[in-house]
């Protein structure tokens, strides 16, 4: 989903910054507040950030003959909400843009919008809706994070299609072409990311279920049920 440096013309890269910067600033405010009010969540915040670091560094081969990488942002979104996830995601994108020449500075706003904001927002909304509907916790985490991973790449395709509409078919034809590269390649990776996230979340339930209740991720009754199933 990294749009390379220089690959978004004016006014698109500015527009995506205009969307991303307020969310990131709000996320920094929320993160500061959370960390100063609840010291006990700091290790979990570090794990969520580290998970993004690991997953987004793994360039995995897909059945389409291309490689791509998962995002890892779905877990942070479920735990801390999309605003805080935006901050964690931008840290990773900055590292990759500055040290790895992967992504870019002018395209940072657009890459942040897809991977750090819109994907996590979808994960968060899906998770909340499905837990209200009573879906099994691990299934919910799997679906929410897999969908978020995939949506990230759909957004990237849309960003490129908006900036480079096809001369014959317009934005739609362009979108289909970019999605053909990104969205299909991403399907196996999204499924893998969903499964890995569900597993990590199982361990979080095992060791830090009280924090999950504090963060409104789970209710005490669900935690009790999940722990019983582990015995």
């Amino acid at each position, binding site marked *: *989903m990294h*749009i*390379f*440096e*220089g*690959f978004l*013309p004016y006014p698109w890269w500015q527009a995506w910054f205009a969307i991303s910067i307020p969310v990131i600033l709000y996320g920094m405010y929320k993160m500061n507040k959370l960390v100063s009010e609840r010291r006990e969540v700091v*290790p*979990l915040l*570090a*794990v969520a*950030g*580290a*998970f*993004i*670091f*690991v997953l*987004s*560094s*793994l*360039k*995995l*081969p*897909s*059945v*389409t*003959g*291309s*490689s*791509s990488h998962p995002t890892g942002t779905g877990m942070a979104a479920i735990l801390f909400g999309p605003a805080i996830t935006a901050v964690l995601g931008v840290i990773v994108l900055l590292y*990759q843009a*500055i*040290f*790895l*020449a*992967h992504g870019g*500075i*002018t395209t940072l706003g657009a890459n942040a919008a897809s991977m750090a904001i819109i994907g996590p927002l979808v994960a968060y909304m899906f998770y909340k809706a499905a837990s209200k509907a009573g879906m099994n916790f691990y299934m919910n985490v799997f679906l929410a994070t897999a969908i978020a991973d995939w949506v990230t*790449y759909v957004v*990237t395709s849309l960003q*490129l299609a908006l900036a*480079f509409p096809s*001369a014959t078919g317009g934005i739609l034809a*362009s979108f289909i*072409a*970019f999605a053909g*590269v*990104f969205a299909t*390649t991403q399907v*196996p990776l999204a*499924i*893998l990311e969903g*499964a*890995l996230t*569900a597993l*990590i979340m*199982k361990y979080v339930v*095992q*060791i*830090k279920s009280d924090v999950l209740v504090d963060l409104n991720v789970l209710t005490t009754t669900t935690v009790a049920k999940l722990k019983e199933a582990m015995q």
Partner: protein
Amino acid sequence: MKLEYIVAIVVLIFAGQFFYGVAANPDSEFGGADGAAGDLVSEISPGYEPAEPWFQQYLFEPPGGETESLLFALQAAFGAIIIGYTIGYYRGKGESNKDTEN
């Protein structure tokens, strides 16, 4: 069924789709989809020249594939250490709490 087994099966299926992909695309080197999208940009807008912003010259660019893989490995290692340390720390803490309760 235990979640660990299900995840192991998903990983196996993932490996399977990779081998199928190798067989189905014998000439492919499995390059990045990011790069493929870049090629697609030049195809759709043949005249487009990626802008070279003024700060580009100050940005660090890995001199080659070796350094790049080092930095990617560092990124993964750094993250994995934090995850392993934290989960291990709390698991150990939970165990020792259990001991003192008994």
